[in-house]
């Protein structure tokens, strides 16, 4: 049986995007939470993401790179349609990336300025990504309602990143900052719930294809697993943050809220993948229509099969080296 290369690449690209959203999501979330913390706490927050953010952003380059390699026509259509939000996201990512390095080297009002850039850049990048997602899943339809929908998704995704960032901090910090993070996590969770609810309500209105996919009986019944599991994961995060926030509690699992947040993202991603498949541009272009020539797909697949295991291994190595609670200074 010949390999279904476009399908394999769609899965690879999806995995890269999911990895990006979860990994850069937590460091963007930490960035957005910066203004809510004291100066000392900011030091811990930054050092908790310091060794990772570069590699996290590389997943975006891989995801976009796979789109470019495997579905070049879609790359042009999607990024052309999202031109300005892409520019906004890139400028956000640039500002926060360099602010991250500059703020360590600055003092006084300079440091405040770079802190502001770090926060602002993180927020701009997150909101642009959410906006793009909203535009993407509705097939770039024009009109006020669609833009409003994209803005809702932007709010939801920012909330999601805050949830990831806060739960990351719960896992990686102690004391007051950890306690604060529990409150932030619950706040983020609220935004996620609101975002997901609004998106779910708006989706059947926004797209016929998706309405049929989700609301035609009896196919709907097994699909109920996704929202129900998400709700369960949300409740789990809520309860675990309650335990950690309560000093008297002994059954603390610092990793649990982050795990819960990741589960919520994976479920939401699965739902999204189900909604879109087999389209790479909603209602217009399937993955088979848009795929590049098999000869180039094969050569990339061979490379990916060879190299990705190493990437996973040394990424795991890096997380092992920097395991445990964050230390005060970035270079400590």
């Amino acid at each position, binding site marked *: 049986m010949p390999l279904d290369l476009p399908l394999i690449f769609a899965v690879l690209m999806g995995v890269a995007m999911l990895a990006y959203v979860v990994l850069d999501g937590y460091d963007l979330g930490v960035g957005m939470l910066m203004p809510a913390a004291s100066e000392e706490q900011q030091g811990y927050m930054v*050092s908790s993401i*310091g*060794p990772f953010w*570069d*590699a996290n*952003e*590389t997943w*975006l*380059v*891989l995801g*976009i*790179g*796979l*789109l*470019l*390699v*495997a579905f*070049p*026509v879609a*790359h*042009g259509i*999607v*990024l*052309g349609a999202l*031109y*300005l939000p*892409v*520019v906004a996201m*890139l*400028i956000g*990512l*640039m*500002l926060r*990336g*360099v602010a*991250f*390095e*500059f703020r360590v*080297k*600055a003092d006084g009002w300079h440091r405040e300025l770079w802190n502001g850039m770090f926060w602002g850049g993180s927020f701009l990048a997150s909101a642009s990504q959410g906006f793009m997602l909203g535009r993407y899943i509705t097939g770039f339809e024009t009109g006020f309602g669609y833009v409003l929908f994209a803005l809702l998704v932007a709010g939801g995704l920012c909330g999601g990143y805050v949830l990831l960032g806060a739960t990351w901090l719960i896992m990686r910090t102690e004391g007051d900052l950890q306690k604060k993070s529990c409150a932030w996590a619950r706040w983020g969770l609220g935004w996620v719930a609101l975002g997901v609810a609004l998106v779910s309500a708006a989706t059947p209105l926004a797209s016929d294809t998706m309405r049929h996919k989700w609301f035609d009986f009896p196919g709907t019944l097994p699909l109920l697993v996704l929202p129900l599991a998400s709700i369960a994961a949300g409740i789990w995060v809520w309860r675990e943050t309650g335990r950690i926030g309560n000093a008297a509690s002994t059954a603390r699992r610092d990793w649990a809220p982050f795990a819960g947040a990741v589960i919520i993202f994976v479920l939401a991603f699965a739902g999204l993948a189900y909604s879109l498949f087999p389209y790479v541009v909603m209602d217009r272009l399937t993955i088979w229509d848009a795929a*590049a*020539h098999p*000869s*180039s797909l094969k*050569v*990339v697949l061979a*490379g*990916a099969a060879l*190299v*990705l295991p190493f*990437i996973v291994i*040394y*990424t795991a190595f*890096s997380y092992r*080296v*920097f395991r445990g609670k964050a230390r005060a*200074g*970035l*270079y*400590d």
Partner: protein
Amino acid sequence: MDDALQLARTQFGLNIAFHIMFPTITIGLAWFLVYFRIKLMRSGDAAWGATYQMWTKVFALTFAMGVVSGITMSFQFGTNWPGYMKTVGNIAGPLLAYEVLTAFFLEATFLGVMLFGMKRVSARLHLTSTILVAAGTSLSAFWILALNSWMQTPTGHIMQDGVLIAGDWLEVIFNPSFPYRFTHMMLACGLTAAFVVSGLSAWRLLRAPKDTGALGTLRIGVLVAAVLAPLQIVVGDLHGLNTLKHQPAKIAAIEAIWKTEKGAPLVLFAIPNEKEQRNDYAIEIPKLASLILTHDIEGEIKGLEAFAPDTPAVKPLFFAFRIMVGIGTAMLLLAWAAVWCSRNKALPPRWLLWGLAGFTFSGWIATLSGWIVTEMGRQPWLVTGILRTADAVGPISEAAMGASLTAYAATYAAMLAAYMVVITHMAGKGAQAAKPLAEGMQAPGKIA
């Protein structure tokens, strides 16, 4: 020229020129760090620790600038040049993917260990991480230069139903101009980093002449520059001959030779007059261009008229080439003078320190000039003989292009200013001001 095309070219040129400045430093500086790290391991001297620490911070900052401006590049191909991906995506895509897979993850992940892991991993593992970061940056140059060289001198492809696919990947990667362009660029990276190292060290010595650590890094920097500069001249010449063979129109534009002639003169200076197809105010040395390019005093050199209408713009190539050669020559003289004046660990005279400090970022000017020559020299082609730049441009509206161009330009200007101020400031304070290393990390082989 069409406005939308002009805007797209300006924006892409701005983005890629801004981006390449930082890898040019990090590709060379990474290997300096490997050397400093080995010195630290061998000697266990805290001064080497401070040196390593300070230069890793310069590296981290430069690397971050490269990463964030590089992400922009991965989006631009699709947004601004959809025709490029449509026609040659089956060649360009895999090369870019291999760059991400084999280089980007490697350097980004081990950079974390290199920067923040000194107290967490063994010295040996930390050195390994430093080496992997350096290998990653060089590997990334390998892939991107393979793609760029293929665009200049494409080989190994097959045309099928209006799109290109690879016939033989080895021929695609090792296309005729690749070995020359890759070596030329790697040497440029080494030179640029060497001047950053010696320039910033000189800046420190101007403020603190007794800083022996800074004198040490200055001597290493100028020594590397003194060795690489003459090599670069040889490689550059070979690269030029290779270009003459495969892209003769580019050479004709560089030398501002309008008409095919035997015994062509070398134009030292002139103002090329594109309208009248001649040089104004020319200062020439008779027969020399023929001698250099064909190694025959009466050799024939094809003029631009032979390639019309597919010729590149003459003025930018003519001047950029002369700027590159001029800076290169000045770098050579300065490096040799500095090696001579700093022999036996002597402090070079102040005028020379000022010269080196002034030349800190000279590699940028030379490298960017070189890229202007090679990229504008490929026009009107995007991929020589296969795809015209004008046929690849996307449908982005002029208003959107104007907005994005303005936003990028403002962001880049601010980032560049901040970068230059901060690293000069850091270097001025000296390596000892950088946070000292933890005890135990300076001895070889100890595990924290």
